[in-house]
Protein backbone atom coordinates (compact mmCIF):
# COMPACT_ATOMS: atom_id res chain seq x y z
CA UNK A 1 0.00 0.00 0.00
CA UNK A 2 1.34 3.49 -0.85
CA UNK A 3 2.09 5.96 1.94
CA UNK A 4 -0.78 8.25 1.03
CA UNK A 5 -3.18 5.30 1.16
CA UNK A 6 -1.74 4.31 4.54
CA UNK A 7 -2.18 7.84 5.86
CA UNK A 8 -5.75 8.00 4.56
CA UNK A 9 -6.56 4.68 6.22
CA UNK A 10 -5.16 5.91 9.53
CA UNK A 11 -6.95 9.24 9.44
CA UNK A 12 -10.25 7.59 8.49
CA UNK A 13 -9.99 5.56 11.65
CA UNK A 14 -8.86 8.54 13.74
CA UNK A 15 -11.50 10.97 12.53
CA UNK A 16 -14.25 8.38 11.85
CA UNK A 17 -14.89 9.93 8.46
CA UNK A 18 -13.80 9.37 4.85
CA UNK A 19 -10.49 11.11 4.21
CA UNK A 20 -8.82 12.15 0.99
CA UNK A 21 -5.04 12.62 1.06
CA UNK A 22 -3.50 14.85 -1.63
CA UNK A 23 -0.19 16.45 -2.61
CA UNK A 24 1.99 14.09 -0.55
CA UNK A 25 5.67 14.81 -0.92
CA UNK A 26 8.77 14.12 1.13
CA UNK A 27 10.59 17.07 2.68
CA UNK A 28 14.40 17.23 2.49
CA UNK A 29 16.57 17.85 5.51
CA UNK A 30 16.59 15.75 8.63
CA UNK A 31 18.07 12.30 8.62
CA UNK A 32 16.57 11.21 11.92
CA UNK A 33 12.95 11.08 10.71
CA UNK A 34 11.21 10.73 7.37
CA UNK A 35 9.19 13.91 6.99
CA UNK A 36 6.29 14.30 4.57
CA UNK A 37 3.87 17.11 3.80
CA UNK A 38 0.33 16.49 2.61
CA UNK A 39 -3.24 17.77 2.67
CA UNK A 40 -6.05 15.74 4.24
CA UNK A 41 -9.69 16.53 3.52
CA UNK A 42 -12.51 15.19 5.67
CA UNK A 43 -16.08 16.46 6.12
CA UNK A 44 -15.36 19.27 3.67
CA UNK A 45 -12.42 20.61 5.68
CA UNK A 46 -8.86 20.46 4.36
CA UNK A 47 -6.02 20.32 6.87
CA UNK A 48 -2.39 20.97 5.95
CA UNK A 49 -0.31 18.41 7.81
CA UNK A 50 3.18 17.06 8.40
CA UNK A 51 4.00 13.39 9.01
CA UNK A 52 7.17 12.54 10.95
CA UNK A 53 7.89 8.82 10.69
CA UNK A 54 10.80 6.77 11.98
CA UNK A 55 13.17 5.73 9.21
CA UNK A 56 14.76 2.33 8.95
CA UNK A 57 18.17 3.96 9.64
CA UNK A 58 18.50 7.12 11.71
CA UNK A 59 20.99 9.84 12.49
CA UNK A 60 19.88 9.93 16.10
CA UNK A 61 18.15 7.19 18.04
CA UNK A 62 15.47 9.11 19.86
CA UNK A 63 12.06 8.52 21.40
CA UNK A 64 9.36 10.01 19.18
CA UNK A 65 7.00 10.12 22.16
CA UNK A 66 9.30 12.68 23.74
CA UNK A 67 9.33 14.76 20.57
CA UNK A 68 5.55 14.70 20.42
CA UNK A 69 5.21 15.74 24.06
CA UNK A 70 7.80 18.46 23.49
CA UNK A 71 5.61 19.94 20.76
CA UNK A 72 2.61 19.71 23.09
CA UNK A 73 4.59 21.49 25.80
CA UNK A 74 5.85 24.27 23.53
CA UNK A 75 2.57 24.83 21.67
CA UNK A 76 0.99 28.06 22.90
CA UNK A 77 4.22 29.23 24.48
CA UNK A 78 6.55 29.30 21.49
CA UNK A 79 6.10 29.26 17.71
CA UNK A 80 5.68 25.56 16.96
CA UNK A 81 3.24 23.58 14.82
CA UNK A 82 0.25 22.13 16.66
CA UNK A 83 0.74 18.40 17.34
CA UNK A 84 -2.19 16.27 16.18
CA UNK A 85 -1.63 12.56 16.78
CA UNK A 86 1.04 10.11 17.88
CA UNK A 87 1.27 6.37 17.18
CA UNK A 88 4.13 4.66 19.02
CA UNK A 89 3.52 1.33 17.31
CA UNK A 90 3.08 2.75 13.83
CA UNK A 91 -0.52 1.57 13.28
CA UNK A 92 -1.39 1.73 9.57
CA UNK A 93 1.99 3.33 8.75
CA UNK A 94 4.00 0.37 10.08
CA UNK A 95 6.66 2.49 11.81
CA UNK A 96 6.24 4.91 14.77
CA UNK A 97 5.09 8.35 13.68
CA UNK A 98 3.32 11.50 14.66
CA UNK A 99 1.28 14.12 12.84
CA UNK A 100 1.29 17.87 13.27
CA UNK A 101 -0.17 20.89 11.56
CA UNK A 102 1.92 22.35 8.75
CA UNK A 103 3.22 25.89 8.73
CA UNK A 104 3.58 27.01 5.13
CA UNK A 105 5.58 29.75 3.49
CA UNK A 106 8.70 29.55 5.61
CA UNK A 107 12.40 29.15 4.91
CA UNK A 108 14.78 26.77 6.70
CA UNK A 109 18.47 27.69 6.39
CA UNK A 110 21.02 25.10 5.34
CA UNK A 111 23.89 24.92 7.84
CA UNK A 112 26.26 25.21 4.88
CA UNK A 113 24.84 28.46 3.54
CA UNK A 114 26.45 31.89 3.92
CA UNK A 115 24.46 34.80 5.38
CA UNK A 116 21.15 32.90 5.24
CA UNK A 117 19.21 35.62 7.06
CA UNK A 118 20.51 38.55 5.04
CA UNK A 119 19.44 41.97 6.31
CA UNK A 120 17.17 40.33 8.92
CA UNK A 121 19.95 38.53 10.80
CA UNK A 122 19.74 40.82 13.83
CA UNK A 123 15.95 40.71 14.04
CA UNK A 124 15.86 36.95 13.71
CA UNK A 125 18.75 36.55 16.14
CA UNK A 126 17.02 38.58 18.82
CA UNK A 127 13.83 36.53 18.45
CA UNK A 128 15.85 33.29 18.29
CA UNK A 129 17.57 33.85 21.64
CA UNK A 130 14.47 35.36 23.22
CA UNK A 131 12.56 32.19 22.37
CA UNK A 132 15.35 30.05 23.80
CA UNK A 133 15.26 32.14 26.98
CA UNK A 134 11.49 31.72 27.13
CA UNK A 135 11.94 27.96 26.93
CA UNK A 136 14.48 28.09 29.75
CA UNK A 137 12.05 30.08 31.89
CA UNK A 138 9.37 27.37 31.83
CA UNK A 139 9.03 25.24 34.93
CA UNK A 140 8.83 21.78 33.35
CA UNK A 141 7.09 20.10 36.30
CA UNK A 142 3.52 20.67 35.14
CA UNK A 143 4.13 20.33 31.40
CA UNK A 144 3.39 17.23 29.27
CA UNK A 145 7.12 16.77 28.85
CA UNK A 146 7.88 17.17 32.54
CA UNK A 147 5.42 14.41 33.36
CA UNK A 148 7.19 11.77 31.28
CA UNK A 149 10.86 12.68 31.50
CA UNK A 150 13.30 12.02 34.33
CA UNK A 151 14.48 15.12 36.15
CA UNK A 152 18.18 15.05 36.95
CA UNK A 153 19.51 16.77 40.06
CA UNK A 154 21.13 20.15 39.30
CA UNK A 155 24.58 18.80 40.09
CA UNK A 156 24.21 15.72 37.88
CA UNK A 157 22.88 17.32 34.66
CA UNK A 158 26.38 17.40 33.21
CA UNK A 159 27.13 13.80 34.09
CA UNK A 160 23.88 12.44 32.67
CA UNK A 161 24.46 14.29 29.43
CA UNK A 162 28.14 13.38 29.12
CA UNK A 163 27.58 9.73 29.99
CA UNK A 164 24.89 9.50 27.34
CA UNK A 165 26.97 10.85 24.47
CA UNK A 166 30.19 9.14 25.56
CA UNK A 167 28.28 5.86 25.43
CA UNK A 168 27.09 6.67 21.91
CA UNK A 169 30.72 7.08 20.84
CA UNK A 170 31.74 3.87 22.62
CA UNK A 171 28.98 2.02 20.78
CA UNK A 172 29.26 3.47 17.29
CA UNK A 173 32.92 4.34 16.81
CA UNK A 174 34.62 2.49 13.96
CA UNK A 175 37.98 4.32 13.97
CA UNK A 176 39.76 5.57 17.12
CA UNK A 177 39.10 9.28 17.81
CA UNK A 178 41.77 10.65 20.15
CA UNK A 179 40.50 14.24 20.06
CA UNK A 180 36.99 13.55 21.27
CA UNK A 181 38.33 11.02 23.80
CA UNK A 182 40.59 13.72 25.25
CA UNK A 183 37.65 16.11 25.43
CA UNK A 184 35.53 13.57 27.32
CA UNK A 185 38.30 12.99 29.86
CA UNK A 186 38.81 16.75 30.25
CA UNK A 187 35.10 17.34 30.82
CA UNK A 188 34.94 14.62 33.47
CA UNK A 189 37.98 15.99 35.24
CA UNK A 190 36.59 19.54 35.39
CA UNK A 191 32.80 19.40 35.92
CA UNK A 192 30.76 22.58 35.54
CA UNK A 193 28.94 24.26 38.43
CA UNK A 194 25.49 22.79 39.19
CA UNK A 195 22.65 23.96 36.99
CA UNK A 196 20.90 27.08 38.33
CA UNK A 197 17.64 25.36 37.48
CA UNK A 198 16.68 22.14 35.73
CA UNK A 199 14.70 23.14 32.67
CA UNK A 200 13.59 21.94 29.25
CA UNK A 201 16.54 21.63 26.90
CA UNK A 202 15.61 21.60 23.21
CA UNK A 203 18.75 19.63 22.46
CA UNK A 204 19.24 20.77 18.85
CA UNK A 205 18.60 24.51 18.98
CA UNK A 206 20.41 26.00 15.98
CA UNK A 207 19.84 28.14 12.93
CA UNK A 208 18.78 25.23 10.73
CA UNK A 209 16.02 24.17 13.09
CA UNK A 210 13.91 27.27 12.78
CA UNK A 211 11.59 28.29 9.98
CA UNK A 212 11.65 32.02 9.23
CA UNK A 213 9.46 34.14 7.02
CA UNK A 214 12.21 35.89 5.06
CA UNK A 215 11.24 39.20 6.64
CA UNK A 216 12.64 38.97 10.16
CA UNK A 217 10.05 36.72 11.78
CA UNK A 218 10.41 33.20 13.17
CA UNK A 219 7.46 31.04 12.14
CA UNK A 220 8.42 27.81 13.87
CA UNK A 221 10.97 26.11 16.06
CA UNK A 222 11.41 22.57 14.77
CA UNK A 223 13.09 19.22 15.47
CA UNK A 224 12.47 18.64 19.16
CA UNK A 225 13.60 15.03 19.01
CA UNK A 226 16.56 15.47 21.38
CA UNK A 227 14.57 17.37 23.99
CA UNK A 228 15.28 16.49 27.61
CA UNK A 229 15.41 18.05 31.05
CA UNK A 230 18.77 19.42 32.11
CA UNK A 231 20.95 22.50 32.40
CA UNK A 232 19.55 25.16 30.04
CA UNK A 233 23.08 26.41 29.36
CA UNK A 234 23.44 23.27 27.25
CA UNK A 235 21.24 24.80 24.54
CA UNK A 236 23.31 27.97 24.49
CA UNK A 237 26.50 25.94 24.08
CA UNK A 238 25.01 24.14 21.08
CA UNK A 239 23.68 27.31 19.46
CA UNK A 240 27.10 28.93 19.90
CA UNK A 241 29.00 26.04 18.31
CA UNK A 242 31.10 27.29 15.38
CA UNK A 243 29.54 24.53 13.25
CA UNK A 244 26.43 26.69 12.94
CA UNK A 245 28.01 30.10 12.39
CA UNK A 246 27.45 30.15 8.62
CA UNK A 247 31.05 31.16 7.93
CA UNK A 248 30.70 34.26 10.14
CA UNK A 249 32.96 34.06 13.19
CA UNK A 250 31.52 37.27 14.61
CA UNK A 251 27.96 36.06 14.89
CA UNK A 252 26.43 33.02 16.59
CA UNK A 253 24.18 31.01 14.29
CA UNK A 254 24.98 33.59 11.61
CA UNK A 255 22.72 36.02 13.45
CA UNK A 256 24.06 38.28 16.21
CA UNK A 257 27.18 38.66 18.37
CA UNK A 258 27.55 36.20 21.21
CA UNK A 259 27.37 38.79 23.99
CA UNK A 260 24.13 40.19 22.62
CA UNK A 261 22.67 36.68 22.43
CA UNK A 262 23.58 36.04 26.07
CA UNK A 263 22.02 39.32 27.21
CA UNK A 264 18.75 38.55 25.40
CA UNK A 265 18.67 35.01 26.77
CA UNK A 266 19.33 36.15 30.33
CA UNK A 267 16.52 38.71 30.16
CA UNK A 268 14.00 36.22 28.76
CA UNK A 269 14.97 33.32 31.02
CA UNK A 270 15.52 35.15 34.28
CA UNK A 271 18.72 33.12 34.61
CA UNK A 272 22.36 34.11 34.31
CA UNK A 273 25.12 32.67 32.18
CA UNK A 274 28.14 31.58 34.18
CA UNK A 275 31.17 31.76 31.83
CA UNK A 276 32.67 28.67 33.46
CA UNK A 277 29.48 26.71 32.85
CA UNK A 278 29.22 27.98 29.28
CA UNK A 279 32.82 26.97 28.57
CA UNK A 280 32.12 23.46 29.85
CA UNK A 281 28.85 23.13 27.92
CA UNK A 282 30.50 24.46 24.76
CA UNK A 283 33.16 21.77 24.83
CA UNK A 284 30.49 19.25 25.77
CA UNK A 285 28.42 20.21 22.74
CA UNK A 286 31.37 19.66 20.45
CA UNK A 287 31.60 16.15 21.97
CA UNK A 288 27.88 15.69 21.46
CA UNK A 289 28.19 16.77 17.84
CA UNK A 290 31.01 14.32 17.26
CA UNK A 291 28.90 11.57 18.83
CA UNK A 292 26.03 12.34 16.45
CA UNK A 293 28.36 12.28 13.44
CA UNK A 294 29.91 9.04 14.66
CA UNK A 295 26.44 7.49 14.68
CA UNK A 296 25.74 8.97 11.27
CA UNK A 297 28.84 7.30 9.85
CA UNK A 298 27.79 3.98 11.33
CA UNK A 299 24.27 4.29 9.91
CA UNK A 300 25.61 5.42 6.55
CA UNK A 301 27.81 2.37 6.20
CA UNK A 302 25.26 -0.02 7.67
CA UNK A 303 22.69 1.20 5.14
CA UNK A 304 24.93 0.65 2.14
CA UNK A 305 26.11 4.29 1.94
CA UNK A 306 23.02 5.36 0.00
CA UNK A 307 21.82 8.22 2.22
CA UNK A 308 23.97 11.24 1.31
CA UNK A 309 22.79 13.26 4.33
CA UNK A 310 24.19 10.59 6.63
CA UNK A 311 27.31 10.53 4.45
CA UNK A 312 28.06 14.22 4.74
CA UNK A 313 27.21 14.16 8.45
CA UNK A 314 29.56 11.28 9.14
CA UNK A 315 32.36 12.73 7.05
CA UNK A 316 32.53 16.49 6.56
CA UNK A 317 30.85 17.52 9.81
CA UNK A 318 32.82 14.94 11.80
CA UNK A 319 36.09 16.41 10.56
CA UNK A 320 34.86 19.94 11.15
CA UNK A 321 33.98 19.05 14.72
CA UNK A 322 37.42 17.52 15.25
CA UNK A 323 38.88 20.95 14.42
CA UNK A 324 36.42 22.68 16.74
CA UNK A 325 37.19 20.21 19.51
CA UNK A 326 40.94 20.61 19.08
CA UNK A 327 40.69 24.40 19.32
CA UNK A 328 38.39 24.26 22.33
CA UNK A 329 40.61 21.73 24.10
CA UNK A 330 43.51 24.20 23.94
CA UNK A 331 41.32 26.99 25.35
CA UNK A 332 39.88 24.70 28.02
CA UNK A 333 43.36 23.56 29.08
CA UNK A 334 44.54 27.15 29.45
CA UNK A 335 42.00 27.84 32.19
CA UNK A 336 41.86 24.39 33.80
CA UNK A 337 45.50 23.41 34.16
Amino acid sequence: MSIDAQIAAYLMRLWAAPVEVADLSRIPGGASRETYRFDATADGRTRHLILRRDPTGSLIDTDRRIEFQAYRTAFGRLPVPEPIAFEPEGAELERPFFLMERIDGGIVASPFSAAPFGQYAQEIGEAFFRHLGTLAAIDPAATPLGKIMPTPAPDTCWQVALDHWATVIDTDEAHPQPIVRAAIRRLRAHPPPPAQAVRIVHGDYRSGNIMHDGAGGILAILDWEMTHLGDPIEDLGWAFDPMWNHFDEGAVCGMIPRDRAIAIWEKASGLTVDPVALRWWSLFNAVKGQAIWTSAAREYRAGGCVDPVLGISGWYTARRHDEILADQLIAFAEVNS
Partner: protein
Amino acid sequence: MTPTLPEILRGNFMSLAQPPTAEMAGDFMTARVGVIALLNLLAAQEAARGMAAVVAENDAIEQILIAAKSDAVSCPRPGDIYTPAEFDARNAALRSALIELHAAAEARGDHATDRRILALYVTTAAGRRLELPPLPG
Protein backbone atom coordinates in the same frame (compact mmCIF):
# COMPACT_ATOMS: atom_id res chain seq x y z
CA MET B 1 38.78 6.99 8.93
CA THR B 2 35.20 6.22 8.13
CA PRO B 3 33.47 6.58 5.86
CA THR B 4 36.29 5.96 3.40
CA LEU B 5 36.62 7.62 0.03
CA PRO B 6 35.61 4.45 -1.84
CA GLU B 7 32.53 4.17 0.37
CA ILE B 8 31.53 7.76 -0.40
CA LEU B 9 31.96 7.32 -4.13
CA ARG B 10 30.19 3.96 -4.25
CA GLY B 11 27.44 5.40 -2.10
CA ASN B 12 26.95 8.33 -4.45
CA PHE B 13 26.60 5.92 -7.35
CA MET B 14 24.09 3.81 -5.45
CA SER B 15 22.11 6.88 -4.34
CA LEU B 16 21.74 8.05 -7.92
CA ALA B 17 21.11 4.59 -9.33
CA GLN B 18 18.13 3.95 -7.08
CA PRO B 19 14.91 5.06 -8.75
CA PRO B 20 13.11 7.60 -6.55
CA THR B 21 9.62 6.89 -5.31
CA ALA B 22 6.80 9.20 -6.36
CA GLU B 23 6.75 11.13 -3.07
CA MET B 24 10.50 11.79 -3.35
CA ALA B 25 10.05 13.83 -6.55
CA GLY B 26 10.52 17.58 -6.30
CA ASP B 27 12.26 19.33 -3.39
CA PHE B 28 13.46 16.13 -1.74
CA MET B 29 15.29 14.84 -4.82
CA THR B 30 16.64 18.28 -5.64
CA ALA B 31 18.14 18.52 -2.16
CA ARG B 32 19.40 14.92 -2.32
CA VAL B 33 21.22 15.50 -5.60
CA GLY B 34 22.68 18.69 -4.15
CA VAL B 35 24.14 16.80 -1.20
CA ILE B 36 25.53 14.13 -3.53
CA ALA B 37 27.17 16.89 -5.56
CA LEU B 38 28.71 18.29 -2.37
CA LEU B 39 30.02 14.86 -1.44
CA ASN B 40 31.61 14.59 -4.88
CA LEU B 41 33.27 17.97 -4.41
CA LEU B 42 34.69 16.89 -1.06
CA ALA B 43 35.70 13.53 -2.50
CA ALA B 44 37.82 15.32 -5.07
CA GLN B 45 39.67 17.10 -2.24
CA GLU B 46 40.14 13.84 -0.38
CA ALA B 47 41.49 12.14 -3.52
CA ALA B 48 43.94 15.00 -4.04
CA ARG B 49 45.33 15.29 -0.51
CA GLY B 50 43.74 12.76 1.83
CA MET B 51 46.57 10.25 1.63
CA ALA B 52 49.20 12.89 2.31
CA ALA B 53 47.24 13.92 5.40
CA VAL B 54 47.11 10.34 6.70
CA VAL B 55 50.83 9.82 6.13
CA ALA B 56 51.66 13.11 7.87
CA GLU B 57 49.38 12.27 10.78
CA ASN B 58 50.87 8.81 11.16
CA ASP B 59 54.40 10.26 11.18
CA ALA B 60 53.49 12.94 13.72
CA ILE B 61 51.83 10.48 16.09
CA GLU B 62 54.74 8.09 15.76
CA GLN B 63 57.21 10.84 16.68
CA ILE B 64 55.27 11.60 19.85
CA LEU B 65 55.03 7.94 20.77
CA ILE B 66 58.75 7.43 20.23
CA ALA B 67 59.59 10.51 22.29
CA ALA B 68 57.43 9.20 25.13
CA LYS B 69 58.72 5.63 25.16
CA SER B 70 59.26 5.83 28.89
CA ASP B 71 55.46 5.83 29.27
CA ALA B 72 55.42 2.14 28.35
CA VAL B 73 52.84 2.82 25.69
CA SER B 74 53.29 0.40 22.85
CA CYS B 75 54.22 1.94 19.52
CA PRO B 76 52.86 -0.24 16.73
CA ARG B 77 55.65 -1.54 14.55
CA PRO B 78 55.52 -0.34 10.96
CA GLY B 79 55.17 -2.99 8.30
CA ASP B 80 55.18 -2.91 4.52
CA ILE B 81 52.13 -0.86 3.73
CA TYR B 82 51.15 0.37 0.30
CA THR B 83 47.39 0.80 0.02
CA PRO B 84 45.12 3.50 1.48
CA ALA B 85 43.39 0.82 3.56
CA GLU B 86 46.73 -0.26 5.05
CA PHE B 87 47.70 3.31 5.89
CA ASP B 88 44.29 3.75 7.47
CA ALA B 89 44.69 0.59 9.55
CA ARG B 90 48.07 1.83 10.74
CA ASN B 91 46.47 5.16 11.59
CA ALA B 92 43.91 3.35 13.74
CA ALA B 93 46.67 1.53 15.64
CA LEU B 94 48.67 4.72 16.14
CA ARG B 95 45.62 6.64 17.30
CA SER B 96 44.80 3.94 19.85
CA ALA B 97 48.32 4.17 21.22
CA LEU B 98 48.07 7.97 21.31
CA ILE B 99 44.84 7.80 23.31
CA GLU B 100 46.59 5.58 25.81
CA LEU B 101 49.62 7.86 25.99
CA HIS B 102 47.53 11.00 26.44
CA ALA B 103 45.40 9.49 29.20
CA ALA B 104 48.57 8.37 31.02
CA ALA B 105 50.13 11.82 30.70
CA GLU B 106 47.01 13.45 32.10
CA ALA B 107 46.84 11.00 34.96
CA ARG B 108 50.34 11.85 36.17
CA GLY B 109 49.99 15.59 35.51
CA ASP B 110 52.55 15.70 32.70
CA HIS B 111 51.55 19.08 31.29
CA ALA B 112 54.37 19.20 28.74
CA THR B 113 53.26 16.01 27.03
CA ASP B 114 49.63 17.04 27.35
CA ARG B 115 50.28 20.36 25.60
CA ARG B 116 52.34 18.66 22.89
CA ILE B 117 49.51 16.26 22.18
CA LEU B 118 46.86 19.01 22.24
CA ALA B 119 48.92 20.92 19.68
CA LEU B 120 49.16 17.77 17.59
CA TYR B 121 45.35 17.50 17.60
CA VAL B 122 45.06 20.99 16.14
CA THR B 123 47.56 20.13 13.41
CA THR B 124 46.10 16.77 12.48
CA ALA B 125 42.51 18.02 12.49
CA ALA B 126 43.51 20.86 10.20
CA GLY B 127 45.33 18.38 7.97
CA ARG B 128 42.14 16.37 7.51
CA ARG B 129 40.05 19.45 6.74
CA LEU B 130 37.56 19.30 3.91
CA GLU B 131 36.83 22.73 2.47
CA LEU B 132 33.18 23.40 1.97
CA PRO B 133 32.47 26.49 -0.09
CA PRO B 134 29.84 28.83 1.34
CA LEU B 135 26.59 28.09 -0.44
CA PRO B 136 23.96 30.65 -1.37
CA GLY B 137 21.47 31.26 1.44
